[in-house]
């Protein structure tokens, strides 16, 4: 069920290119939407427009039963029933953990408020630090308190702005797993802003790709990864190899092989590195440098002057200078006519 719809949102600061340019999103209850884009693409601004912390120049934000902002009206953030977790957590340094989490419940009586705060702190396993001040907490703990503070009011929509970027490595994974669990339990419509493609694909039920203030593509992570709507969208989700192709007779031909494609004339084939499979037969290519990359090997390959990087299992790793055969895996390739 739709919880919040944003449509045609624009926002510009000064005379420069708009920070957000006619962007739209749909958030659903119980589902996690990840808004992915490089830093400076306007994703945080879009989130602030939805939250009501900024006023859009144009466009509309609405829930099924009311308009939050459009050309004629603007609901201030405090009346939007939206929770927000800030990148820096924004915990209030003059309040304890318990007071921070209870901040939004000031209309409740003392006992009831405390009960709800403690229940929420239990959920994020922070109940034992209720009396601590934020400065005394570790980064992960602060993140959990910030999440608890946003969720304790039981908002219909929860927005998270780069919630895990301040954490590193192992801690990040743990915190992320716990946060995901809590967010799903809450049943809210969740929007997570991130610049980490892997994180986005892992967390998201729904993915929205953003660049230069625009939403390039929305869909499941799988669809977005395997069927990018543009080379730009493809690049947002991971490494790509882009090859010049000639489309004719329903096929796109490249030195590394051909794939079915519509249209005719010059085009571009965008492939993931794992699309290049070393096989017994196929396009003959020369192997350039080979580098070790943990679980796999990256091999530079060259054919007819075009270069690509292939991601190859260790077992099949070629040596530099080898002549091997390559077959393209269609699932990891997309053809775009020019």
């Amino acid at each position, binding site marked *: 069920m739709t919880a919040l719809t944003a449509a045609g949102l624009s926002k510009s600061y000064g005379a420069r290119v708009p920070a957000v340019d006619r962007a739209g999103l749909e958030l659903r209850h119980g589902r996690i939407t990840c808004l992915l884009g490089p830093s400076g693409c306007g994703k945080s601004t879009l989130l602030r427009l939805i939250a009501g912390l900024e006023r859009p120049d144009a466009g509309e934000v609405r829930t099924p039963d009311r*308009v939050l902002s459009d050309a004629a009206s603007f609901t201030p*953030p405090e009346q939007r029933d939206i929770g927000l977790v800030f990148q820096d957590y924004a915990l209030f340094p003059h309040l304890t953990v318990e007071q921070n989490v209870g901040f939004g419940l000031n209309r409740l009586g003392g006992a009831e408020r405390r009960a709800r705060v403690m229940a929420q702190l239990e959920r994020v396993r922070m109940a034992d630090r209720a009396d601590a001040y934020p400065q005394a907490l570790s980064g992960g703990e602060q993140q959990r308190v910030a999440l608890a503070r946003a969720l304790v009011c039981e908002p219909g929509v929860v927005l998270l702005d780069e919630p895990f970027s301040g954490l590193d490595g192992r801690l990040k994974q743990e915190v992320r797993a716990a946060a995901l669990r809590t967010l799903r339990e809450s049943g809210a419509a969740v929007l997570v802003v991130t610049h980490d493609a892997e994180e986005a694909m892992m967390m998201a039920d729904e993915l929205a790709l953003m660049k230069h203030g625009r939403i390039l593509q929305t869909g499941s992570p799988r669809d977005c990864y395997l069927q990018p709507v543009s080379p730009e969208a493809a690049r947002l989700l991971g490494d790509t190899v882009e090859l010049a192709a000639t489309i004719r007779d329903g096929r796109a031909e490249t030195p590394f092989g051909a794939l079915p494609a519509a249209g005719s004339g010059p085009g571009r084939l965008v492939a993931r590195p794992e699309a290049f499979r070393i096989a017994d037969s196929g396009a003959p290519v020369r192997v350039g440098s080979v580098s070790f990359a943990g679980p796999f090997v990256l091999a530079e390959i060259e054919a007819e002057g075009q270069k690509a990087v292939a991601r190859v299992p260790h077992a099949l790793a070629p040596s530099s200078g080898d002549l091997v055969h390559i077959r393209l895996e269609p699932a990891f390739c997309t053809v775009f006519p020019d």
Partner: protein
Amino acid sequence: MTTAAVPRARPFPRLGGLHLAAILAAVIALAPLLAVVATALGPGADSLTAQTFARYALTSVALAGSVAVGAGVLGALAAWLVVMHRFPGRDLFAWALVLPLAAPAFATAYGYADLFDVAGPVRTGLRAALGFDAPLEMRSLPGAAIVLSLAFYPYVYLTLRAALVNQSVGALEAARSLGRSANGAFWAVTLPMARPAIAAGMALAVMETLADYGASSFLGVQTLTTGVVRAWSVFGSTAEAARLALPLLGAAAVLLLIERLSRANRSADVGPSRWRPLPTQQLKGPGATAAFAFCLALITLGLLLPAGWLAYRGLSVQPDAARLLHGGLNALGLAVVAALFTTALAASIALGARKSRLIARLTSLGYATPGAVMAIGLLAPAGFLWRGLAGAAGGFGVSIALLLLAYAARLMAAALEPVDAGLERVTPSMIGAARMLGQTESGAAWRVELPMATGALVTAALLVFIDVLKELPATVILRPFGFDTLAVMADYYAKDERLADAAWPSLLIVLVSIPAVIWLTRRVGASRPGAALGASQ
């Protein structure tokens, strides 16, 4: 959670309560200054010759320049000694060095002028011993520069000490690791980083110097402010007086800009989040003695000597205890209410005018505006009220209210600076978080921003409190019937050339201010991140 959406025509920020409060506060603070400008544009022939004006202006520049250097060197040296070194008495000096701030500059001037008068004890004694008169005239430009430097060096000391205390150990250690000695690191790293703080402190000292009339006129130094007073009282032209004040307003604007810019730079060099104790150097032997002697001399010359001499003079007369008590209670009550009121206005401006910094800066101009000029500016708006509201001119409440507005206009900078600095701790996302948790803009200010700036608000209130205790011109001209304050009494006795009687109210001001000054200086010590937490709760 309501469903009401506020209808709006343009994508402009809604004028909430905060903005309205800020606008009101700014109007209050700016009204006298605008009145000065309006008066300056009004009719009224100029009676002062260009030559006389030039003499006043040059004297002002010379005095302000010498005080900048004098207060700068004394204050900077003191701060450097106290923060970066260990020597006997350091902990005591750390706060005691601020104490001269408790003494009104006019009281320091009374003490010095009398002590070094040609018929005073020092020169009489020297004449007896040497057979000729020692040229130790305090009633002169150099004398005034010395007196005001001694009175205002704590501004430089306080700002620089705060900067040194907050400096990054990392940068110091980096300098040491790059082969600098401790002293070398000071010159190469600490001093350049502290330069903005010194500049800010000097700017404050210069503003105080330009705004001063009591001390410099008592010391016979004729500055632009003298010109203002002459134009007004002798030639009866408030227009000319206001015109003479325009260069002072301009100077104030420039100084405020310096102060603001240096603060902007200062916040930029707060780097690492890990704070370790500052490395201090243990002084031994002659070094320790010299440091000790310097700090002791500064406190002695800045406060103990002039105040002590005044006290000695005061003992020769029987003070009117009832009047002193009355004046003291008046001053105390007025200062407390004015401190709270001005701080509240400053908080409104700081919170509500965040996007229009110019307004905030303009409201600070009153701080460097000489009292006589302020009085001209105050009378115009006050006149509207007096003439428009029957009974207002004689009313106690109206007079006090006008006084409060006058203090706010005159001292807004003193309150706005610390409040602004305190609010810098509040990140935009904290305000956003409060909004997302159901608070309106005002609610966020009330529940997050103000509580986080509590310490800063108290600092602001104390600064205003101390300044109001010393304030003269606005108090004299706007006060209600029969309402004497300590400063008014001191001025009154000094005008009647009764220094011994003037000593009592002057010393009472010092006495009342000292606890406030001590609290202020403690806060600077506690301002090092980590230490601040306890203090701000």
